[in-house]
């Protein structure tokens, strides 16, 4: 079983140049891994400082202005430079061509350009945040961001604008790849759900991101030229900015969560040794979420002064978008029924996802209800809700996928017990961090304040204590995954008994993916007495 000098994409070429100029989707995925880990660390550092500050009721870690810059930095980095590219650009890049039996994405050079745009945008934004920071919050609300905010708004907004093109080009590449590069026999209903989810995500990337780009351009024009577009002082309409911003930024939430749902749909059948329950429903729910997700942005503006009838319509549509999400949760759960369940690390992360996403989704229904939303708008209830979706959901899914595909990506096995420990630690740390924030918000603690009345302190202390556990849960994988590269056992081609095409090539895969284009003969997730029936018969 020992083959030390087997040729793979990792050693097909060597040297820094071969990495920075690569057009291999698998290598570009690793470039993204490096970038995303870097930005996750910066965003996490800001979060750590925020939680430290909030242990005591008075402000003691720098000025209120410094605190404003901290939460802005946390939001901007985490949203645009971690969550949005996280799963699609790393695991999507790596496994989608493998899953559909292709040799690469449709446009490999464009793929590399996407990475450079992402890194350039990220560095520009980080430079703005380090040069003095910005204090608008990640939403850049008008007229605050053009008239009152201090700092390097122009530079930060420009960085986000540049990174937006990375999103657009990645989405475009995935759409074309899924449409045109599927292997013979890989029909739409034989695609693994992860491919469908990433496809739905790509539709949002391509159709929503340009609206953000234009909105940011108009914001820049106003801030630079001082001519009214959004600012009431100049005759503009600040609500227009909110409409345009959320027209992108609400679908952006689905950009973050849909790929995670795709990962969970891969992991659950494999570790239950069973067909995914209701494949067609899961698939069409992804598309439904992407479509309805474009029509709910107004629920961010219930107290902003939009028309009541508009609010009613947005409230109804926000309830509606919860339906396909709920269907997925039921389908994952039903898949477990009478399954041959194994509790490996990816499955533990998947269980964490299902539980936390359910809480995040249900509290989303609270917020879709007009009277409750008026009560808890801009409180920690909202903060807790979206962290259950974006951290409990999206980040758990990220770690589930990372652990699931790690043996394929690196050709090495990680220490399973440490991985399970980290998964359980992250789950408990997460709940201790964010569940108290629901209570805080319900009691009336507003978000984005450095100091607060002493009666809230107990909940903040609980939350900060949880954050320290969560931090360990996130830091542990860095160590044991790095260790596995050096010392881990060599991974077989299909360590989890999965059925997808990516598991029928060696670990790590050869540079050209498939020596012969595979012929796909059956749908994914087929098991016979718990034994996997591979999607492709290979000779």
């Amino acid at each position, binding site marked *: 079983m020992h083959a030390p000098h087997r040729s793979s994409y990792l050693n097909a070429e060597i040297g820094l140049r071969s990495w920075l100029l690569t057009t291999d989707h698998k290598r570009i995925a690793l470039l993204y891994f490096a970038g995303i880990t870097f930005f996750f660390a910066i965003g996490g550092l800001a979060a750590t400082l925020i939680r430290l500050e909030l242990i005591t009721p008075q402000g003691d870690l720098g000025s209120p202005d410094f605190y404003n810059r901290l939460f802005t930095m946390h939001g901007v980095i985490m949203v645009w430079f971690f969550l949005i590219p996280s799963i699609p650009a790393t695991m999507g890049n790596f496994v989608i061509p493998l899953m559909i039996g292709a*040799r690469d994405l449709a446009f490999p050079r464009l793929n590399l350009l996407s990475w450079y745009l992402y890194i350039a945008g990220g560095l520009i934004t980080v430079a703005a945040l380090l040069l003095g920071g910005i204090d608008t919050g990640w939403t850049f609300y008008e007229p605050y961001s053009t008239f009152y905010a201090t700092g390097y708004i122009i530079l930060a907004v420009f960085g986000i604008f540049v990174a937006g093109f990375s999103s657009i080009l990645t989405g475009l*590449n995935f759409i*074309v790849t899924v449409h045109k590069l599927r292997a013979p026999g890989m029909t739409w209903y034989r695609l693994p759900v992860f491919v469908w989810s990433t496809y739905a995500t790509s539709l949002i990337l391509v159709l929503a991101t*340009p609206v953000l780009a234009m909105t940011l351009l108009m914001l820049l024009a106003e801030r630079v030229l*001082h*001519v*009214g577009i959004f600012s009431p002082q100049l*005759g503009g309409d600040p609500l227009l900015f909110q409409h345009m911003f959320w027209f992108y930024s609400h679908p952006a939430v689905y950009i973050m969560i849909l790929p995670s749902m795709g990962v969970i749909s891969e992991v659950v059948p494999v570790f239950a040794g069973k067909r995914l329950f209701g494949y067609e429903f899961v698939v069409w729910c992804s598309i439904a979420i992407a479509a309805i997700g474009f029509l709910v942005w107004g629920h961010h503006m219930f107290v902003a002064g939009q028309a009541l009838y508009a609010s009613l319509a947005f409230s109804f549509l926000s309830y509606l978008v919860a339906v396909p999400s709920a269907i997925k949760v039921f389908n994952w759960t039903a898949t477990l029924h009478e399954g041959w369940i194994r509790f490996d690390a990816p499955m533990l992360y998947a269980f964490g996802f299902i539980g936390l996403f359910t809480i995040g989704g249900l509290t989303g229904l609270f917020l879709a209800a007009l009277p409750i939303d008026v009560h808890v708008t801009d409180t920690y209830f909202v903060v807790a809700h979206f962290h259950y979706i974006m951290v409990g959901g999206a980040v758990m899914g990220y770690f589930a996928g990372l652990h699931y595909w790690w043996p394929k990506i690196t050709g090495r096995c990680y220490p399973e017990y440490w991985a399970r420990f980290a998964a359980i630690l992250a789950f408990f740390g997460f709940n201790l961090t964010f569940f108290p924030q629901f209570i805080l918000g319900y009691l009336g603690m507003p978000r984005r304040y450095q100091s607060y009345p002493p009666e809230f302190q107990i909940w903040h202390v609980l939350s900060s204590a949880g954050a320290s556990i969560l931090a360990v849960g996130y830091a542990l994988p860095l160590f044991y995954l790095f260790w596995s590269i050096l010392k881990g056992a060599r991974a077989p081609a299909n360590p989890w008994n999965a059925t997808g095409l990516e598991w029928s090539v060696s670990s790590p895969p050869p540079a050209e993916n498939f020596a012969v284009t595979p012929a796909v003969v059956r749908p994914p997730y087929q098991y016979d007495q718990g034994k996997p029936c591979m999607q492709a018969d290979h000779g």
Partner: protein
Amino acid sequence: MADEALSFQFATPVQQREAVTLGMWAFLATEVLFFGALIAAYFNYRIWFGAEFVAAAQMTKVVLGTTNTAVLLTSSACMAMAVTSFEAGSRRRPTLWLLATAVLGLAFIAIKGFEYSLEYGEHLVPALNFDLARHGGVAEIFFMFYFCATGLHALHLLIGIALVTWLAIWIGTGRINRGGSTTRLIGLYWHFVDVVWIFLFPLIYLAGRNG
């Protein structure tokens, strides 16, 4: 998008042609949403400030705008001829049609530049020399949209002119094979830039001019 040879990720030339075509359409979908956001914002104020916007629109140079519409539509016709004659196998004719396309594109830019200079003379350029006392704040918002929209359109057109010129040289010197998609894709892009103008022209120039 080298289309002379079959790139390694594709199995057949047909697959490659379909993929690059879909890629261009997806890119144009992005562009539609990009301009669409600006036009949506314009509509917001067009409805809100109806009368003032109509008054501001009277200050646009409708004769020059109409001339430019004709110039741009003609350029698209030339582009269509270039694509057809290229696919019919000719080398000289698509080169000439492409040069005509580029020249008409440049004519559009020249007329647009002349128009901008007239507007500069009338103190209609926001942030540069806008005469608030004479024209009013709403007119400034109108002209902000005018310069943003036509400016971004002109930028797209300049990129198109560069692409078309490059393509003319490459076809003229025989460096592009007949089966390739590049000509058709650049054609799609050119027509898209034309269609954007078809929307901008009535929105900006014809507001309130119907009697």
